[in-house]
């Protein structure tokens, strides 16, 4: 009984850890640039496929399987640099446009990235095999949990704390918060907004691609994973509140754990339950649970 419960809970928290990374990317971009990035799920998929390739390259060249997490994370972070290209090449043209057009531009990215992934990696699912079992299994209250999942949860927590530190204690964080709060005032005080936007968008992209890379050892990369995850990340930010990091954290936990519970109790409910909560939150408290402070 307890073992079962722990299993469900750990599954949910693992999923929440990944969701948090993607949702945090969505939040930081929305907080500063006021763009709701539909393509954050596509970045996640891109990170996942790159992760598989990076690990494949690493092991094929004699890298010790136990260290696979290093190329995995590096690959995930490196492909996040595509954010620079996207921001400079596309998004910068639409900052002063109606948000409908910004939304549609990110939808264009969703379409392009989906097929770019299919062109590069094919349509069949790819995975890293059972590599993650290298780290063994841990026994928690009678349940067996892969140690890899615990590592990811810890990494996600560390990143959450890191973002918190970045936003509250560093100069760049202060600039981000100022820009989120009042763009014109920040610019008047000498902040080069173009530079901020590039960095913020790339940070958001990297969070998404890293999330995708980290999830991949525990599952397989499929070309639809991006457009499926975006609606979950969307649920997270709506529940937590658009633009709020604390909101992303709480929202990810709510969505991850509830989904995991629903799957084991009444599978038909799975995502239905999440969307119903999203609707309830939007109607009852459209700003979300933590939607007061931006970024």
């Amino acid at each position: 009984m307890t073992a079962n419960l722990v299993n469900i809970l750990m599954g949910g928290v693992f999923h929440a850890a990944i969701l948090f990374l993607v949702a945090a990317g969505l939040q930081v971009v929305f907080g500063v640039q006021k763009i709701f990035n539909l393509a954050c799920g596509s970045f996640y998929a891109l990170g996942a496929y790159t992760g598989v390739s990076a690990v494949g390259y690493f092991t094929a060249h004699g890298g010790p399987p136990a260290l696979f997490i290093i190329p995995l994370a590096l690959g995930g972070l490196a492909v996040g640099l595509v954010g620079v290209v996207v921001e400079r090449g596309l998004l910068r043209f639409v900052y002063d446009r109606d948000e409908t057009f910004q939304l549609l531009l990110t939808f264009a990215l969703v379409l392009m990235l989906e097929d770019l992934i299919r062109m590069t990696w094919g349509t069949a699912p790819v995975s890293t095999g059972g590599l993650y079992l290298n780290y063994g299994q841990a026994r928690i209250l009678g349940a067996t949990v892969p140690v890899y999942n615990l590592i990811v949860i810890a990494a996600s927590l560390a990143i959450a704390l890191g973002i918190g530190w970045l936003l509250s204690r560093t100069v760049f964080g202060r600039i981000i918060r100022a820009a989120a709060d009042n763009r014109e005032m920040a610019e008047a005080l000498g902040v080069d907004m173009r530079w901020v936007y590039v960095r913020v968008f790339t940070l958001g992209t990297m969070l998404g691609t890293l999330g995708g890379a980290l999830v991949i050892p525990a599952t397989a990369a499929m070309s639809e994973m991006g457009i499926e995850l975006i609606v979950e990340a969307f649920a997270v930010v709506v529940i937590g509140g658009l633009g709020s990091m604390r909101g992303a954290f709480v929202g990810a936990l709510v969505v991850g754990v509830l989904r995991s519970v629903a799957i084991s109790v009444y599978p038909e409910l799975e995502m239905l339950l999440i969307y119903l909560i999203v609707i309830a939150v939007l109607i009852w408290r459209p700003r979300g649970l933590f939607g007061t402070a931006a970024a």
Partner: protein
Amino acid sequence: MRTPVVLSLVGIAFLGLPVLAPTYYVTLMLPFMAYGVVLLGLNLLFGYTGLVSFGHALFIGIGAYTGAVLTTHLGVRHMELILPAAALAAAVVAAPVGALCVRYVKIYFGMLTLAFGMVFYTFLLKFYRLTGGDEGMRMLRPYLLGSEWSGFSKTAYLIGPYYYFSLAVLVLATLLMWRIVRSPFGLCLKTIRDNPLKAESLGVSVPRYRWYAFMISAVYAGVGGALLATPTGNVDPTLAYWTHSGNIVFMVLLGGFSSFFGPLLGAFAFIFLQDTVMSVFPYWRLIFGAVLAFIVIFAPGGLMGLFARRRRPVEVSRA
């Protein structure tokens, strides 16, 4: 005026197409006409009222599933009954959904419609026994004008009677929408789009009018969805998926949301372009994503905006 001339030429072309054009292109016209009906409605919301729905595929799904349930399970085969039923089903769902959604604008409206669309999608996918799950449901060939057209093969039926039936529906839908946008009601919607505060102070009940627009556009999407189901012969949950909603907004933008006929041109261009691209290059989304990005950045007026050079520039900047 040029417009009546163009319209009569287009009308003649449509009437003569099944006789003159190769069968394949005639069958491509069927989804075009179905989407045409959907987009006329969607643009009442998008172009005329200024609300962008990212969940409108919900109502296409409702229309299509209404048709499938009626023909396969309830033995109702007459298209003249299926279309009103689809419209009614869409209206019944749109009434509460719309009432909740129109309380919000801009991104929150988009998010709420997306969430409702995904609720319906998940329902279709997960409640296998009712909906057939991911395999969906068959849509049997409907009777038209009381006749089964049993002497016609599937293709002959589609490019013959069904083509003209769809055309008639599209023409009726277009005439009706033309009346709607030219009516005082349509003018109120435009005022709401351009200046909701002013509309309110002039005595227009903004949420109520937005709700009406939502209902009308949902009914159009329901009818279009039912029309769309017959050529495919099968309905499945992806009809209600959020990317489908995105695609129909794309079609409106491709044609031009600020013009009455823009969405129809958009549906036409989307379907024939998709077909052309797919025949030479399997990754049509890559090309279409690039086209969409180009339109958003450089030509927000869409194809209509490119044609109509002398018209007033499209207003896209943030108010």
